[in-house]
């Protein structure tokens, strides 16, 4: 009976082990996918801050696919009744989890620290569920940036484009100069990041109608056909070797002058700075032409789960995340801007300051929208349905009209 006894032993040993490894009251277990050096360094700020408050940090990174692997792991953990204390999460994932009723309540901390006043309403949309705080936002990334190599820009006329036509002209000029105008990586989310910007360039109302309200008329209308036409134009500015390329490799192409520009969220800035480039001197950061004054954002938040023990540590962590010092330190490293609007911009560089100003402006004039590409405009199923169509079109499977029609169908099927 050796094996049977062995199995029993394992199981009972396992039960004891389980008891031993449950996070103790003064620890937080954090599930996230910030595993690169800079991000980890930024998180370390938080970890050390918590350490001074006597709260231990149990690290549970699951990298890959922009958090996809982490979300799978989270689902298994929650199903097993073994939720982590806090989880890095984006956009509609937060809403989905909130709907499952498994999240904690941060109202006490939020009230004490006055979060309602300092967090923009568009963010609160995700941080609150049924009027209760459930998550602490860490940052705001804006995704409608264009990063241009200054030398390449100068060689092609030197003026940063402000309209779509100027943009096309600039890219044609770059092409004539023998470089790839647009550095791009052929991954669904990167294609969709371009798409976001192009949709937004057709106007705030159109973005809201098509991407947020998912209005079929907007999704399949003439303006959407125009969007796809512009996407096709952008595709013609990309080299043939783009498929599957990581975004940071695309950044590298701009950095070393192989390509003229990249359309990417503000995290790309870190690549430029790390390569020793200076804003305005070596590279230029502008909003995608036609989207000046508007921002599509995504926001990383630490979502707090409803756990039996360790609520105190959880609250301490929430408070630390919202601490202006941390917000500043973290976002300087990460390239994003703070989630609270009252953080001083002293430590930020040129593009960072610009980003904070844009965010404030967009927030006040109704031009701040969740990014479809990054899961802040619609639920995951819809987001992926949009990915499917955009990517298929970008890879030449559809004509513009077909793509617009397909977009209506795909979004409908996913709802």
């Amino acid at each position: 009976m050796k094996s049977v006894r062995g199995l029993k032993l394992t199981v009972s040993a396992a039960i004891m082990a389980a008891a031993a490894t449950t996070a103790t009251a003064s620890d937080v277990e954090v599930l996230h996918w910030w595993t690169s050096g800079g991000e980890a360094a930024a998180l370390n700020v938080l970890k050390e801050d918590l350490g001074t408050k006597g709260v231990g940090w149990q690290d549970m990174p699951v990298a890959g696919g922009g958090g996809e692997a982490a979300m799978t792991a989270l689902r298994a953990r929650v199903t097993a009744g073994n939720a982590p204390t806090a989880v890095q999460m984006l956009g509609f994932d937060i809403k989905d989890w909130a709907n499952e009723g498994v999240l904690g309540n941060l109202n006490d901390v939020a009230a004490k620290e006055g979060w309602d006043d300092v967090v923009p309403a568009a963010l609160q949309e995700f941080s609150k569920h049924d009027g209760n705080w459930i998550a602490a936002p860490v940052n705001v990334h804006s995704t409608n940036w264009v990063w241009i190599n200054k030398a390449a820009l100068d060689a092609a006329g030197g003026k940063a484009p402000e309209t779509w036509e100027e943009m096309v002209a600039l890219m044609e000029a770059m092409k004539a100069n023998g470089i790839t105008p647009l550095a791009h990586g052929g991954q669904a989310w990167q294609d969709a990041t371009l798409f976001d910007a192009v949709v937004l360039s057709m106007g705030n109302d159109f973005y809201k109608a098509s991407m947020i309200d998912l209005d079929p008329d907007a999704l399949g209308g003439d303006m959407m056909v125009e969007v796809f036409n512009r996407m096709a134009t952008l595709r013609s500015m990309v080299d043939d070797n783009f498929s599957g390329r990581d975004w940071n490799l695309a950044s590298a192409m701009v950095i070393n002058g192989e390509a003229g520009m990249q359309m990417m969220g503000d995290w790309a800035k870190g690549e430029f700075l790390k390569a020793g480039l200076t804003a305005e001197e070596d590279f230029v950061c502008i909003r995608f032409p036609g989207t000046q004054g508007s921002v599509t954002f995504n926001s990383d938040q630490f979502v707090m789960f409803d756990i039996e023990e360790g609520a105190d540590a959880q609250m301490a962590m929430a408070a630390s995340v919202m601490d202006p010092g941390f917000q500043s330190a973290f976002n300087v490293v990460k390239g994003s801007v703070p989630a609270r609007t009252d953080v001083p911009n002293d430590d930020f560089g040129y593009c960072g300051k610009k980003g904070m100003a844009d965010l404030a402006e967009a927030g006040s004039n109704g031009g701040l929208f969740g990014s479809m590409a990054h899961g802040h405009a619609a639920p995951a199923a819809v987001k992926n349905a949009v990915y499917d169509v955009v990517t298929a079109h970008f890879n030449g499977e559809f004509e513009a009209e077909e793509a617009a029609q397909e977009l209506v169908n795909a979004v409908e099927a996913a709802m």
Partner: protein
Amino acid sequence: MSAPSQDNAVKGSVITRAIIYVVLILFVIYYLLPLYVMIVNSVKPLEEIRSGNMMEFPKVWTLEPWRAAWSYAQIGVEPSGLRPYFINSILMVVPAVLLSTILGALNGYVLTKWQFRGHGIVFGLLLLSCFIPFQIVLIPMARVLGFLGVSGTISGLVLVHLVYGIGFTTLFFRNYYAAFPTELVRAAQIDGAGFFQIFWRILLPSSAPIAVVTIIWQFTNVWNDFLFGASFSDFDSVPMTVALNNLVSSSTGVKEYNVHFAGAILAALPTLIVYIVSGRYFVRGLMAGAVKG
């Protein structure tokens, strides 16, 4: 079966043999290429990787990426390297492999030497279990692990790998024991040996070839698993593959390819060693039964 003095060989001219060798060597290159790329680039400084040719030998040799990958590369917020996860993997793999092998051996023994009504169906069901796509069991498995109180522990992972390994181990041992003379079992019965005595004293000592195949198979599968490791582990039970993934596919920042390659090789080292050391027995073991499928 030792050192077969085979004479299947085609007797051909020198030219034929030369062609044979050329083809064999071409395929040696094909199989070694990815490993070569990994090794060469793991001992280059990052600069050289960026600027150079991936096939070229390093101009400057460095072992720094290896040291980094093993002991201080950033995995999440901890600059711990892969070392602690290596230990987790060992703690998971050893019991999972041993338990599933022992169970497989016992099952194979029962299914061939102690057949009962319906043994064919039982075997069929066990065997079919090898073929389910693991993605579908994640959610229900998570619930069961939570129910058993082993979610997020190494024991939980051992249980998962045990369950999904039984089919293959049973298949291997059953096919092997099917060719094992039943008369030996009968002789031992007449000698008065019981169920476990026969297994322990008669079958097990002759099971080395198939045990090698089974252990290699299980070891590789469990060690290389990512899906279960990522889904069912806690911060303190993360296996090597998941840590490697955290190292390699971090979302932003500079990709330290040399460290990634060094880490990948480190993660692959145990299975590589197992294959290379026991590859000879592997073919022999396959011959002794597993091939019959």
